[in-house]
């Protein structure tokens, strides 16, 4: 994929980026370009600053050091260039929204005042619902949808502005295999067909392995960037974690053995950064 990275202006450009919470270092000296159409998976243990990296790109979290640019401009809150797919989280049963209303909020929910031009909005919502295959349950309340149905709506929300950068925060968590495939294929299609850069935070690379161009692995205050073949090796992961780790490949899947459950000195940082994207 190097050709893809060199031809165009990068969508994401991090230079000497570092992030500390108090004296805890999440990561430091991170130089990273993500090119249009590139699919970057961000892996690492809990509390290694994966979600926080997304917050930095969204302008919700300031870097402790270094710079971050999205499409050539410093990251700012509410950028139209970015779409976000969050973790699946159930809506309460009495939420007064249907599937199509949730998608509509993704399109214009940040605007003030009453809604005008409803017809145009409805047409856009219909098109997005069709794009993600959610037309069949457009009129159903969000409170009764399954996790997989919900994540398709999330994809519709995120794709509404044809974003240059698509941020995904564990979007496949708690989905069944069928929906995992459908949602990750949707995300991949946006990268391929529309040239969006994808930054995909996950703790499990296998469901998306076939789409991933590069991996950013964060652990223990350090990181490693490279293709899955370069990063997902016993040597690299053992070095990152500072303890012996075995990586096996079987049937196109990657199996990692000996991973510590958490990295000790990051417990506090997790509390500060984990609560998805809302806790800003």
């Amino acid at each position: 994929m190097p050709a893809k990275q060199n031809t165009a202006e990068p969508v994401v450009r991090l230079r000497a980026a570092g992030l500390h919470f108090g004296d805890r270092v999440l990561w430091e000296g991170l130089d990273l370009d993500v090119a249009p159409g590139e699919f970057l998976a961000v892996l690492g243990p809990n509390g290694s600053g994966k979600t926080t990296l997304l917050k930095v790109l969204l302008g919700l979290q300031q870097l402790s050091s270094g710079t971050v640019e999205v499409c050539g401009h410093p990251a700012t809150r509410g950028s139209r260039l970015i779409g976000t797919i969050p973790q699946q989280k159930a809506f309460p049963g009495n939420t007064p929204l249907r599937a199509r209303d949730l998608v509509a909020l993704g399109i214009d929910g940040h605007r003030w005042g009453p809604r005008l031009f409803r017809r145009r909005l409805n047409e856009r919502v219909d098109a997005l619902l069709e794009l993600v295959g959610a037309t069949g349950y457009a009129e159903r309340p969000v409170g009764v949808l399954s996790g997989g149905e919900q994540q398709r709506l999330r994809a519709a929300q995120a794709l509404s502005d044809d974003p240059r950068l698509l941020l995904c925060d564990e979007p496949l968590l708690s989905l069944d295999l069928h929906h995992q495939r459908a949602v990750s294929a949707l995300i991949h299609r946006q990268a391929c067909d529309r040239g969006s850069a994808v930054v995909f935070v996950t703790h499990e690379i296998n469901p998306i392995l076939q789409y991933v161009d590069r991996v950013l692995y964060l652990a223990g205050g350090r990181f490693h960037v490279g293709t899955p073949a370069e990063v997902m090796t016993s040597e690299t992961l053992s070095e990152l974690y500072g303890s012996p780790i075995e990586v096996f490949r079987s049937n196109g899947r990657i199996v990692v053995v000996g991973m510590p459950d958490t990295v000790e000195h990051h417990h506090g940082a997790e509390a500060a950064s984990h609560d998805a994207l809302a806790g800003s």
Partner: protein
Amino acid sequence: MDLNDLLGTIFSFENYAELLPLVTNSLIAGAILGLVGGLVGMFVMMRDMAFAVHGIAELSFAGAALALLLGANVVWGSVAGALAAALVLGLMGASAKDRNSITGVLMPFGLGLGILFLALYEGRSANKFGLLTGQIVAVDSVQLGLLAGCAVVVVIGLAVIWRPLTFASVDPAVAAARGVPAGRLSVVFMLLLGLSVALSIQVVGALLVLSLLVTPAAAALRVTSRPTLTVVLSVAFAVLSVVGGILLALAGRLPISPYVTTISFLIYLACRLIGWRRTVAASRARRPKPVAGPAPVR
């Protein structure tokens, strides 16, 4: 008191035609409060803030009682108390957990203050009781103007922040990523809520504010999830409760609040029933029909 007397006290329609014109102001006030309560209630439900509403109401009561004691305007007193409480909750209670504990601390303090002020007050005792349980007689044109003015502020304020506030209330993660300023919206909403609570106290009293700010919206959410329809129903239920309550309470000697709370409670029960029947019907429809097996061979 036998049953007939009791019924006569609860439902009395003597001189109804002569009484009606006297309460025109109250009816208008009731309709305004229903509108405000039905609208604000939507967000009280979405943001899970019923307990906070109760807390704000008690501090609003304290403010009104102080105004009564000092001979100041009671409406302004309750507005001041409610806004103070709403601001504290808005600034300190970002998460639902914090908000609940702060409300639990503020509420008894507010009630205690209110009782203190009422104990010191030496005027008509009906005034005292009215603050807690509601009254209809007292709305003159000046107060009606004040109520309407505050209601206009709440309605316009809500219209401006409706969409982003809905977004931030039901879908905080994506709203934050989209740049919706959830913190500032929350404070603005708390102030509008405080204003609405202060208004509602003038009619249903501090103890029963929830029947206007929670029950109608909760009922509406039971029967539909279409955003526009929930709002319309919520407002309709609230207006029906207040105006209906005033009309029933008119000729009797009882305070208005039991009528209002009963109507809104019955509407809620009916909506639950409808919602429940729908759920049952839906799950029946989804259950696969028994497959006809091969006919038994004889």
